[in-house]
């Protein structure tokens, strides 16, 4: 146990055993997946048409916004080149699905259906449509375990979007709230401030939303303010998540571009 806790030698053993466990998890997940599939396939034509119109509108809106972003990104890149610093904003992503199984109680973990075979790695960041969800802690050949950002043993480096103030967001383990630690009582923070990942520590990509500040409690006599952050990712209800490869080395980039060119 100590070996597993402190070192990573047993990761391969765990990976092999997880191949054994995966079919079980898959079978347990089947009825739920079937229910989802049924409820998706048994919808009326009217509903589908409505959804289609809605999605089309959304697509149009997002596309128009994206055009602006493209210009901004170019401009940003030019300015950064002027400053002689380069930041790669685009990352490779892959969609994974949740396997709905029960894990250890009192910890915030989920299982997803992508593993080593799809190129997932230990410590890989996971995001959903709203923001950062967590990171992979165990990889198996077909599935991986993800530690959510609300777990009490999880912390991630963040910054406040408005003024760039850096902090560390630690999970509380209960009621899906994070707390920002060691912020002095006179720090420039307000309720409703957007918190984004800062990319320090080279594990999470920078610039992904993490949450918004929901409560600031100033306790007299305490040196630090107690700041609660409501995560912007739907940690409890997302069924699809994204695997992100934020810090790929140059070679892989070249290979990918070649593939795209072909």
């Amino acid at each position, binding site marked *: 146990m100590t070996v*597993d806790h402190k070192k990573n030698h047993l990761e391969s053993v765990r990976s092999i055993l997880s191949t054994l466990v995966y079919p079980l998890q898959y079978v347990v997940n089947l009825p739920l997946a079937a229910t989802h599939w049924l409820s998706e396939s048994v919808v009326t034509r009217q509903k589908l048409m409505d959804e289609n119109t809605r999605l089309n509108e959304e697509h149009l809106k997002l596309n128009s916004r994206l055009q602006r972003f493209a210009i901004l990104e170019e401009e940003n890149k030019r300015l950064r080149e002027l400053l002689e610093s380069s930041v790669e904003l685009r990352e490779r992503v892959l969609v994974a699905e949740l396997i709905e*199984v029960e894990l250890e109680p009192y910890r915030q973990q989920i299982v997803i259906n992508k593993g080593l075979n799809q190129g997932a790695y230990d410590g890989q960041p996971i995001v959903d449509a709203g923001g950062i969800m967590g990171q992979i802690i165990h990889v198996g050949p077909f599935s991986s375990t993800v530690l959510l950002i609300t777990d009490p043993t999880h912390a991630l480096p963040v910054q406040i979007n408005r003024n760039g103030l850096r902090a560390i967001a630690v999970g509380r383990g209960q009621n899906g709230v994070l707390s920002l630690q060691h912020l002095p009582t006179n720090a420039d923070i307000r309720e409703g401030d957007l918190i984004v990942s800062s990319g320090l520590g080279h594990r999470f990509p920078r610039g992904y939303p993490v949450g918004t500040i929901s409560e600031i409690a100033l306790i007299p006599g305490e040196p630090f303010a107690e700041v609660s952050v409501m995560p912007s990712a739907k940690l409890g209800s997302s069924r699809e998540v994204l695997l992100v490869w934020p810090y790929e080395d140059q070679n892989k980039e070249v290979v990918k571009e070649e593939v795209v060119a072909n």
Partner: protein
Amino acid sequence: MLGQQHNGGWVIVVSFVVAIMLTTMPLPDWVMNWRPVWVAMVLIYWCMALPDRVGIGVGWCLGLLLDVQQGTVLGQNALGLAVIAYITIISYQRFRVFPLAQQAVLVAIYLLLFQFFNMWIRGIMGIPSQHWSIWLPALTSMFIWPWLFIILRDIRRKYHVF
């Protein structure tokens, strides 16, 4: 010779697989804390019924599988299950002659010990769980034990597992 001595090993394997699946099954939040410790209960049954076939080694391997499934530290469930298997094996002769109610209470005590081991290791890892609800599974397991016992006994007799 071995084939004649033992029979129906697949029944034992299937019962463990079903137990792991019941542990894995997602439940609504309000029943989650009451989930019985299926794997440990099935292990106690087989250790009691067939102490020469199912023992500490099986408990340990089962625990490792459970650890991988639950994402705990390798060995957390394994240690607890091995200890339970050991206690059951040294006391199976007494255990067998107890009436069902007394067995259920004893099972609850064993499972409290199992939960205690889990809590202890989690505490060492720095994941405290002082909430009182960690003792609830032992209680539900106590009420389920008589039914589980009867079902597993009938299965054992039907498929002539010995």
